[in-house]
């Protein structure tokens, strides 16, 4: 699979691809035959990913991308850490209670990998800031708990033709897909409207392993998009039920009448 085009790739062909420190840090993934070796690692270092939000799903994705050596992470997450977050958020510790999410998350990610450039937006993503959030990144990773946020990112990703990796969960179930505008269905093709019962961020139960596994799959999708490794979930909806240990992949296609990504799209808004 060919990798995506990155916004910047300033590496000169006369420079060594990786430093001695990078060779050591990433030696285990460099051993993976499908990964693509030092050129793939250098591409990860050149890539930027915008992650919203950064809790159980998005935070797992951000953490694994930092460990993998992604070049830049833009983190969006409004509010302060509360005790009920601690059953699933890998970037939040008990000592972080009442701290702004992004402050604690930046600290943990910097400790995990100080080579990652971090930018934080201490707000959730909406129509007023989605342009800023999406514009500076190569890929969007969507782990938001509200459909309004998800549809805003989907619309902007389609408008800017940027790949978006989407992951979501409920209770012990989760799914993920990779959206490449112009090539795959967008979120609104798969789900044109949000469920009428999904009215706030506290509507869903969650146990840590399901948000972790969905975030991990999202991180792998980003790595695949950047490096060209393996097969992505483009055009496929991957779903897992951890209660029954059932995992399936479903084929999803673009809708000719999609209000966001089809040729008939008149506006970038979704009926909520």
């Amino acid at each position, binding site marked *: 699979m060919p990798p995506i085009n990155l916004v910047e790739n300033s590496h000169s062909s006369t420079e060594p691809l990786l430093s001695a420190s990078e060779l050591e840090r990433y030696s285990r993934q460099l051993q993976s035959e499908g990964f693509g070796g030092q050129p793939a690692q250098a591409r990860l270092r050149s890539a930027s990913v915008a992650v919203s*939000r*950064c*809790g*159980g*799903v*998005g*935070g797992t994705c951000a953490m694994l991308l930092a460990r993998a050596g992604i070049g830049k992470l833009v983190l969006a997450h409004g*509010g302060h850490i509360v005790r009920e*977050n601690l059953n*699933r*958020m890998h970037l939040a510790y008990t000592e972080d209670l009442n701290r702004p999410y992004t402050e604690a998350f930046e600290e943990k990610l910097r400790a995990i990998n100080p080579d990652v450039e971090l930018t934080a937006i201490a707000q959730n993503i909406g129509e007023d800031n989605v342009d800023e959030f999406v514009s500076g990144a190569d890929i969007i990773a969507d*782990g*938001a*708990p*509200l*459909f309004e946020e*998800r549809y805003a990112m989907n619309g902007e990703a389609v408008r800017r033709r940027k790949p978006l990796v989407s992951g*979501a*969960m*409920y*209770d*012990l*179930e*989760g*799914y993920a897909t990779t959206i490449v505008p112009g090539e795959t269905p967008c979120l609104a093709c*798969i*789900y*044109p*409207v*949000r*469920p*009428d019962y*999904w009215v706030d*961020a*506290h*509507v*869903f139960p*969650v146990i840590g392993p399901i*948000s972790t596994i969905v975030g991990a799959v999202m991180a792998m999708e980003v790595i695949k998009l950047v490096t060209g490794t393996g097969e992505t979930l483009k055009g496929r*909806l991957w*779903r897992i*039920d951890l*209660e*029954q240990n*059932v995992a*399936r*992949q*479903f*084929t*999803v*296609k673009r*809708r000719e009448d999609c209000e966001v990504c089809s040729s008939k799209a008149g506006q970038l808004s979704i009926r909520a």
Partner: protein
Amino acid sequence: MPRVYVPTMMRKCVDGKSSFEVSGQTVSEVLASAYRAFPALAAEVLDKDGRIKPFIAVFINSTSLHDMENTARVRDDDEVHFVPAMAGGVD
């Protein structure tokens, strides 16, 4: 017989089952059989006009119902999956 897989949020409609078998040899027959067995499932899945709600994706094996005719054949070992839209994430 084809087996219907039920997501967590719909299991209240099917006596808590995660899956159940249905009769029928076509897509429409299999779905009708599921709705007859569990009318609460029909109420959850269908809108007032009897169409599947747009935030619920239905697949026969890996193929979306959007890409199938109602008269398409369903085999005994086929699977029906209801996949409602989710947004969890995290607060």
